[in-house]
C-alpha cells in the first residue's frame, strides 16, 4: 500500500493490517460466510433490509484463495494459431446463359499463425479452399484461384521508435468510404464481393512494403509494391459482365484477356498517405502512382484489355458531425496515357467525390448514407473521339448508398442491408444479410446480391444475371 494510504488508514485507531477495513465492518457481516451464490441472487439474505452483503474482499471472509488469471485453456503452441472453417453455397436467382447456375459452393479453412520474436512480428494467414463450381484448381497466388489463397505472410519491424515497417503479403486499407473507394488503391476482389463471400474477401492481398513514420505534426505511410497488384476484377469466369465489343452481356464464353503489367520494379506502384488527428477529426492527404486497378483500356491490335498508367491525388476528413460520424473524400484520377481524353481506347481522367454520414438512430440500429459523384474529365474530347454509332458513357455518374444495420437477441442476430443506387445509371445493387451467432464458435448467415438495372451496360445493371442468394455456416476457433 502506498505511503499516503497507509497514513490515512493509520488515522483510525485499532486498525488491523490488510485491506484497510474499519473494525466496525466485520461484525456487521452475517456470522456465516456470505456464500455468494452461483446463480442469480434475489434480494440479499438479510431479512430486515435490502442491504447487500459485503463482497469478498470487503470485510467478508475470503472463501477461496483468489485464483488469478483465467487460463485460456488453449494448447500451448510455439505460436498463436486461430482461424475458421466454413461452408458456403449460393445459386443464381436468374438464368444466366453465360455462367453456371451455382454461384458459389465453397469449403474453406483459414489458418492464421502469429509469432513475436524479439522485435519482429511474423504473421501468416492462409486459406485452403475447394469449390466445385469453379473448375480451375491450379494455384495462382496472384489472382487467388486454386485451393490455396495466401492472404498474409509478413514481418513487422520497428527499426526506430518513430517508425514501423511491414513487409510481405498483407491486406491494406485506408480512406473513409463505406464500400466506395477513392484513395484506397489497394487491390480488391470484386468477384468475392459480388458472389457473396464474407466482406473480408473484398480486400485482396498486396505484396508490398509499408513504411510508417509518426510524429507530433503528422504521420506518414508509404506503400511500395514492386510489381503491380491488380484487382481480382470481373473477367467473366465467375461473374458475367457487359462486353462492349460483343455489344451484349458475356461470361464464360468471352473471358476477359488482359495484358497486365508485370515487370518487377518496372511496373511498380507507390502509394502514400499523410494524416493527422485533430481533436477527433481525422484529416488525410493521399497520392498514388501506378495503374488503373481493373482493366481501363483496350489494345485493338492484341485484342487484350489493358491497365493504363494512373496517378491519383486526394484528401479526406472524418469526424463527429451532429450525433454521428461524417466523412468527405475526394480524389483526382489522372489517366496518364490519355490526359486529353481523346483516346477512346483508354479511360479518361476522373474526379471522384464522396460525402457520408452515419448515426445510431435507435437502440442497436444504425443507418448510414453516402453520396458519390464521379465526373469524367475531357468529356468533349471523349465524345469527339468515339467512333460513330458506339455507346457513349455519361459525363457524370452519381451513386447513393444506404446502410442499415439492426442487432437483435442480445446482438447475436444481425439484420443488415447495404444498397447502392445510381440515379444517373438507373441501376441498383442490394446486399441484404442476416447472420446469427449460434454460440461462441458457430455462426450462420444467409444473404443475397441483387442487381437491378434499366440497361444492360450500366455499372450495376450489367450484373443483373449474376443476382444470387447464398448461405453459409462458419466455425471459428
Amino acid at each position, binding site marked *: 500500500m502506498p505511503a499516503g494510504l497507509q497514513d*490515512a488508514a493509520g488515522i483510525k485507531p485499532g486498525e488491523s493490517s490488510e485491506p484497510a477495513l474499519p473494525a466496525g465492518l466485520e461484525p456487521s457481516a452475517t456470522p456465516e460466510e456470505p456464500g455468494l451464490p452461483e446463480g442469480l441472487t434475489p434480494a440479499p439474505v438479510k431479512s430486515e433490509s435490502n442491504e447487500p452483503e459485503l463482497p*469478498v*474482499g470487503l470485510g467478508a471472509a475470503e472463501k477461496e484463495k483468489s485464483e488469478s*488469471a*483465467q487460463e485460456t485453456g488453449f494448447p500451448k503452441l510455439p505460436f498463436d494459431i486461430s482461424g475458421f472453417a466454413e461452408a458456403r453455397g449460393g445459386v443464381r436467382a436468374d438464368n444466366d446463359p453465360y455462367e453456371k447456375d451455382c454461384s458459389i459452393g465453397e469449403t474453406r479453412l483459414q489458418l492464421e499463425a502469429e509469432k513475436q520474436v524479439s522485435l519482429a512480428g511474423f504473421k501468416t494467414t492462409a486459406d485452403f479452399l475447394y469449390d466445385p463450381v469453379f473448375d480451375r484448381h491450379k494455384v495462382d497466388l496472384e489472382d487467388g484461384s486454386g485451393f490455396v489463397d495466401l492472404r498474409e505472410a509478413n514481418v513487422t519491424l520497428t527499426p526506430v521508435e518513430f517508425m*514501423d515497417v511491414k513487409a510481405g503479403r498483407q491486406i*491494406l486499407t485506408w480512406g473513409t468510404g463505406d464500400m466506395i473507394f477513392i484513395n484506397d488503391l489497394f487491390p480488391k476482389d470484386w468477384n468475392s464481393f459480388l458472389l457473396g463471400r464474407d466482406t473480408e474477401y473484398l480486400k485482396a492481398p498486396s505484396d508490398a512494403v509499408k513504411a510508417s513514420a509518426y510524429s507530433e505534426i503528422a504521420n506518414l505511410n508509404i506503400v511500395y509494391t514492386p510489381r503491380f497488384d491488380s484487382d481480382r476484377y470481373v473477367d467473366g469466369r465467375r461473374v458475367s459482365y457487359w462486353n462492349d465489343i460483343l455489344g451484349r452481356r458475356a461470361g464464360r464464353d468471352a473471358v476477359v484477356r488482359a495484358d497486365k503489367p508485370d515487370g518487377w520494379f518496372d511496373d511498380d506502384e507507390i502509394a502514400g498517405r499523410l*494524416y493527422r488527428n485533430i481533436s477527433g477529426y481525422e484529416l488525410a492527404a493521399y497520392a498514388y502512382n501506378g495503374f488503373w486497378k481493373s482493366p481501363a483500356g483496350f489494345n485493338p491490335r492484341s485484342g487484350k484489355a489493358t491497365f493504363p498508367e494512373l496517378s491519383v491525388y486526394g484528401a479526406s476528413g472524418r469526424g463527429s458531425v451532429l450525433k454521428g460520424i461524417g466523412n468527405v473524400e475526394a480524389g483526382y484520377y489522372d489517366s496518364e496515357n490519355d490526359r486529353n481524353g481523346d483516346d477512346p481506347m483508354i479511360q479518361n481522367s476522373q474526379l471522384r467525390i464522396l460525402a457520408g454520414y452515419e448515426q445510431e438512430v435507435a437502440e442497436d440500429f444504425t443507418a448510414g448514407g453516402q453520396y458519390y459523384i464521379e465526373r469524367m474529365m475531357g468529356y468533349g474530347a471523349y465524345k469527339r473521339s468515339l467512333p460513330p454509332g458506339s455507346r457513349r458513357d455519361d459525363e457524370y455518374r452519381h451513386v447513393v448508398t444506404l446502410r442499415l444495420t439492426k442487432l437483435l437477441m442480445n446482438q447475436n442476430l444481425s439484420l443488415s442491408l447495404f444498397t447502392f443506387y445510381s440515379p444517373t445509371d438507373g441501376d441498383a445493387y442490394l446486399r441484404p444479410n442476416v*447472420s446469427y451467432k449460434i454460440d461462441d464458435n458457430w455462426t450462420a448467415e444467409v444473404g443475397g446480391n441483387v442487381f437491378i438495372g434499366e440497361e444492360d451496360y450500366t455499372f450495376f445493371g450489367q450484373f443483373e444475371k449474376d443476382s444470387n442468394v447464398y448461405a453459409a455456416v462458419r466455425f471459428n476457433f
Partner: protein
Amino acid sequence: MKTLDRLAMPVRVFIVFSTLAGGFVRAADEQLSVDEIVNRTNRTAYYQGRDGSAKVLMTITDSQGRTRTREFAILRRDDPAPDGKDDDSHCGNQKFYVYFSRPADVNKMVFMVHKNVDREDERYLYLPALDLVKRIAATEKRTSFVGSDFLYEDVSGRNINDDTHELVETSQNYYVLKNTPKDPASVEFSHFKMWIHKTSFIPVKGEYYDKNGDKYREYSAEKVETVDGFTTVTKARMSDLKAKSATVIEYSNVKYNVNVPDDVFTERFLRKPPREFLR
C-alpha cells in the same frame, strides 16, 4: 463484416477499477455531503491510478442457461490533471484500448475510445482481416456492451451530472444513494439505488427501477482485491431480472500505473497492438 456490425454498437469501455480513495478514509461517523460521496464513488469506480491494465472475462448466461463468453485485455489512461497535480483527484477525459481475444470471430479486433467529459466520445474499431479502422457512430449509451447485460454506460461510468442524488440511508456499512435522472425521457429507468461501501467508496450493489417502480436490473460486486494498493472489484455481476439473464465480469492480472504512453491510443497501435501492455 458480421463481426464488424456486432461490435459497431454503442459500446463504451468500462473498467471497474476501483480503489480505496487514498487519503480519504475517515471515521465512519463523520458526515460527508452527498456530492462528496458521489464524487468519491465516481473516482473509485473509474479513475484509480494514472492508468491501468487488466484481462477481462465476461460470462453471459441467458434465461435458458446457455452461456457465451467475451475475453479481452483492456488498457486505460487518464488525461493528466490540467494543474499538473498528481494526486489522482482529477476525473477528466480518459482513453481506453480493448483488445479482444474471444469469441474467436472477434479475435484481434481492437475497440478504442477517447472518452470526453465535455463532448461526444470518439470510438474506433479496428478490423484486422480488412486492415480497416472504422469510426463508430453511436450515441446511445444505454445499450448492451458486446451483447452482455452490462450497458455501455454502466461500464464507462454514467456522467454524475445526469442525475440528482439523494442520500436515503446511512447504515453501518453503506451510504445508500437514490439517483434520479434529470432527463427521464433519455433513460429506461425511473431511478436507481446504490449501496456504497463507506470506507472504500466501492459501489457494492445497484438496483434499477423501471417507470412502474419495479426493480428490473441489479448489480453486485462479488469480489474485491487489493492491487498495487488500490481496492479493486475483481468480480461483479449484472442481472437483468426481466430477461432473466446475467453477466459475470471477472478481472485478472490487474495492474495500475504501468505507464502506458499516450500514443498507444492512436491509429498506429490499432494496427500494431502494444503487446507489452496486453500481456
